[in-house]
């Protein structure tokens, strides 16, 4: 165990030794050091947001053919720090008639709920936060707290548009929770465990190979959970002013954005851990620092995909969002999960390669069936709409002739 191959454990052991030398039992010292480390992790995550904001603005800028932030510091790297300082010194306006307790609690919950997920993320072979045996369930439970913050904000603002945004958020976020939870069930089933580190260790072959449909559903639903374009109905500025955070100012307003940027990255972390093998890679067991690097690189790829989608897709309508979820994603998720369970049981005696092959085949069949039915439905709807338009044209023509006669 040296510093270069596993710095976190090395520093941890060194600190434990230091505390123990002050005359504390070894176990107590270790527990104290872990407790302090656990307390520092949210701080690091909060600071990491500064990098995320810069990265996201730069990428979105590039996608839209403009340079992005490039004035403050090299490549505009100091821009988020300047923005943070500015927003930190802005006045907090408390509008008349707001419901004070939920109003002030909302930004705290929006950030705290997202930060809370970081504790179960396995960063490398030796550093995996707290490895509880219900990690996946914990992520779902804590992830829902952020939603609560947005609902509080919209509900307590004494603003009709914010209230409308809160309704939309309730409808959208709880709907997309269903395919997300069902898609998350597939890696849990494949790993036979809810512990995040166990799920990662069960992936010498990434789960995205055995469960491509579940991975796709999880990815799209997690974008909807963050409430980003194309699912950013809660802040549709052309319809409901600024959405749920219209009445917020100063750092309270900023906290919602901190929560959003962090949520997007956290979901990429979780996606990587669940479907892309987490820290797994050549040499990750012997040199845990390599695990960090693999995990980080995979996460950046997933995160970049999310930003690219944000930068290039127009916004859905509320009815489209709902129908996409309940009429497409939920049935696919149910089918994909049932198929995965059946294949796992029936092909249990086959080798790994054969079983994964069957998994891929079954996923392809489900996707094919969905595409076939979908194309039929769209064709039928197109014919129906054409007929409707034809009838309207005829009616308009008739009424024009009548008015001409009289």
């Amino acid at each position, binding site marked *: 165990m040296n510093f270069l191959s596993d710095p976190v454990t090395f520093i941890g052991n060194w600190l434990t030794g230091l505390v123990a030398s002050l005359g504390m039992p070894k176990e107590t010292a270790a527990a104290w050091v872990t407790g302090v480390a656990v307390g520092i992790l949210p701080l690091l995550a909060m600071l990491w947001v500064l990098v995320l904001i810069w990265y996201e603005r730069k990428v979105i800028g590039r996608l839209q053919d403009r340079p992005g932030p490039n004035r403050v510091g090299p490549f505009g790297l100091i821009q988020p720090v300047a923005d943070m300082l500015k927003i930190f010194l802005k006045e907090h306006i408390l509008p008349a008639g707001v419901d004070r307790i939920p109003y002030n609690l909302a930004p705290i919950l929006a950030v705290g709920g997202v930060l809370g997920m970081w504790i179960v993320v396995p960063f490398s072979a030796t550093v995996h936060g707290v490895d509880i045996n219900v990690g996946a369930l914990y992520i779902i439970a804590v992830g829902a707290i952020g939603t609560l913050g947005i609902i509080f904000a919209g509900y307590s603002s004494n603003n009709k*548009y914010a209230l409308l945004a809160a309704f939309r958020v309730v409808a959208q976020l709880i709907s997309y929770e269903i395919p997300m939870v069902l898609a998350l069930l597939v890696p849990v089933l494949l790993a036979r465990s809810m512990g995040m580190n166990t799920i990662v260790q069960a992936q010498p072959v990434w789960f995205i190979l055995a469960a491509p449909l579940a991975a796709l559903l999880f990815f799209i639903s997690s974008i909807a959970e963050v409430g980003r374009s194309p699912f950013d109905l809660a802040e549709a500025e052309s319809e409901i002013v600024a959405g749920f955070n219209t009445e917020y100012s100063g750092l309270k307003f900023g906290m919602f954005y901190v929560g959003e940027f962090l949520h997007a990255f956290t979901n990429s972390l979780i996606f990587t851990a669940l479907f892309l093998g987490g820290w797994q890679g050549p040499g990750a067991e012997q040199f845990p620092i390599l695990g960090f690097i693999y995990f980080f690189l995979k996460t950046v790829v997933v995160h970049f995909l999310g930003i690219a989608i944000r930068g290039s897709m127009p916004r859905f309508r509320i009815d489209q969002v709902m129908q996409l979820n309940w009429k497409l994603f939920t049935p696919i998720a149910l089918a994909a999960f049932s198929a995965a369970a059946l294949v796992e049981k029936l092909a249990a005696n086959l080798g790994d390669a054969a079983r994964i092959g069957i998994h891929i085949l079954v996923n392809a069949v489900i996707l094919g069936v969905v595409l076939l039915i979908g194309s039929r439905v769209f064709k039928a709807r197109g014919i129906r709409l054409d007929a409707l338009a034809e009838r309207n044209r005829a009616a308009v023509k008739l009424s024009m002739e009548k008015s001409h006669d009289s």
Partner: protein
Amino acid sequence: MTISWLYIGIFLVVSLGLPAVAIILAGILAPKKPSPEKSIIYECGVDTHGETWVQFKAQYYLIGLVFLIFDIETVFLYPWAVAFDRLGLFAVLEGLLFIGILTGGLVYAWKKGAFEWA
């Protein structure tokens, strides 16, 4: 195992406390010049009319109801998935039957028009 939950407790307290402390600190540092004009709610830029607690679509309520059923029933599937190796073929088929009943509920809600946004 129990100590893990203690760490999670510390972590949750710190992660809720961090934004709270930041907001309180900013509230102390920021200027405070309240005025009656400033504290009028912004809404959409013009003066607000009538009650904020307007009537809303019953559709949101229906979606909430369907969600409740689905979410609770999918959470039941988690222990089933974890104990998968210890289940016989019969228990697996039983689980699939459970999903089938769930699908029945989905089809029922669909036919009733719970997902139509009209």
